């Protein structure tokens, strides 16, 4: 990970999806349903793509150009 402290702050963003799926009392409910799917289920499913977006943002924000960018993969 980058040694730049300002860039390291971005990593705290990774906590967002974790907290979102651990706050069980918040999402353990049936409504509002979406396409007939109870809240409990679609809320957690929704956080899968959201977690991917969060990780992608942190990746792009903390990537150090030159460290291993540009090398053949």
């Amino acid at each position: 990970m980058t040694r730049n402290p300002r860039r390291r702050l971005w990593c705290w963003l990774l906590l967002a999806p974790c907290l979102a799926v651990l706050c069980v009392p918040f999402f353990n409910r049936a409504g509002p349903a979406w396409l007939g799917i109870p809240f409990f289920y679609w809320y957690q499913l929704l956080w899968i793509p959201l977690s991917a977006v969060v990780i992608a943002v942190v990746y792009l924000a903390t990537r150090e150009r030159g460290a291993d960018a540009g090398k053949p993969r």
Partner: protein
Amino acid sequence: MNVVAVAVFVFFFALVTVLGFVAAHWRRGDLDTLHEWGLAGRRFGTVITWFLIGGDLYTAYTFIAVPALMFGAGAMGFFAVPYTILVYPFAFLVMPRLWAVAHRRGYVTAADFVRGRHGSPWLALAVAVTGIVATMPYIALQLVGIQVVVAALGFPTGGWLGELPLIISFAILAAYTYTSGLRAPAMIAIVKDVLIYVTIIAAIIVIPEKLGGYGAIFAHVPGDKLLLKAPDAGSLNQYSAYITLAAGSALALMLYPHSLTAILSSSGSDTLRRNMALLPAYSFVLGLIALLGYMALAAGVDRLPQYAGYFGEYKQNFAVPALFLSLFPDWFVGVAFAAVAIGALVPAAIMSIAAANLFTRNIYREFVRPDCTPAEETQMAKWVSLIVKVGAVAFVIALPQQFAINLQLLGGVLIIQTLPAVIIGLYTTWFDHRGLLAGWLAGIAGGTAMMAAQNFKSPTYLLHAGAVTIPGYAALYALLFNLAVAVAVTLLCRAAGLRRADDATAAGDYADAARD
């Protein structure tokens, strides 16, 4: 027997068999070194790493067991979703560091790293043995996945003839893993993952339409299973169980030898980080697969007379195969079942390679033949990969299926006990290696005792705190015990003035790296 489905199934099986042997020539390397045979030379880029890790972590057993749990237990089974959401942010932070030090120091296993970092061959042995013991029942469970779909295709289920398809598929798997090493599962993973995606996309479009939409499907779920049981005066009930199972499973997953083997075979820290943003695609599929359990419930497959015998034999694990059989055309049943069976081969191959790497590196070379050549070391690993598979087949044939399932549950409790040495070890050498070893022993003993208290049937331990019961994942409770003992023994070693072991790694080893 379902001739069309069997033909499609056999076609895909033959295809991956050819691919498995061809893989030896792919990105040619010297297959007489462990680094090439067991890690494919750490050369896999973003795309192959994505297929390999996805093909590795999301096993056939997962595809059978997760919907089976939903089918039987309802909302509780959905913990697989938060579990897979928690895995990637964690791996994003931790795994590039492990990759970097493993690359710079030539480490092939987690135990290699522990040996170097904490300077103790005995702690490394503990990590290696834990990895092998946790992996063996996991390989056996992949066979259960194959068994269920082979039976569903209409093959006889009992006796010598019933085990034959299983023995043949594992013999083929063993042969190409022996010759091609990690390159074989990497190539097959591409076929597996494509088949899985096709099957699931078809399933979530076709099945809800036939069953009257998602609203109608969820209406069939009994009210007490639709949501988690909320806490009451005496117990936190399913809330604490759900949270600890998700968090504990996420921490344990990356410690499994097969996960680390796939991670270490990628080509750099950056490749890994990018993958952590891309791998949730598989989690989404897993979430949809979980819902198949409810679709099976809505379709009432367990009440259909033609499947009664199978449910007697395989219990809830037959829910998804029965759903496919009753709602898909024959040819597509062949595709779906091939996806499950091939989905068993990929992780089984990687698990056997990972177990072989551990045995050869951290037991054979460390304690038996310290002066063996790289070629001898690799030959040993190839033999061990064969022995591991024969052992898994014998395990499944000789012992009741429930035994493998219970042992796999125990495996998660055991493997998480290596977290202080491996993951915390990446960040600090504060712990004394004697403290880590004592903590490991305490965690293994405590975790096993908690599982024994539930007759190994459930991973949830009922912790009594005063008047309140806190049901939670035994792995996590045992890990806390492990850490407490590790801290206490470390402080004792300091107080006694015992000499600390040397750290063979340097601070710079942990900085980002990539293969040239």
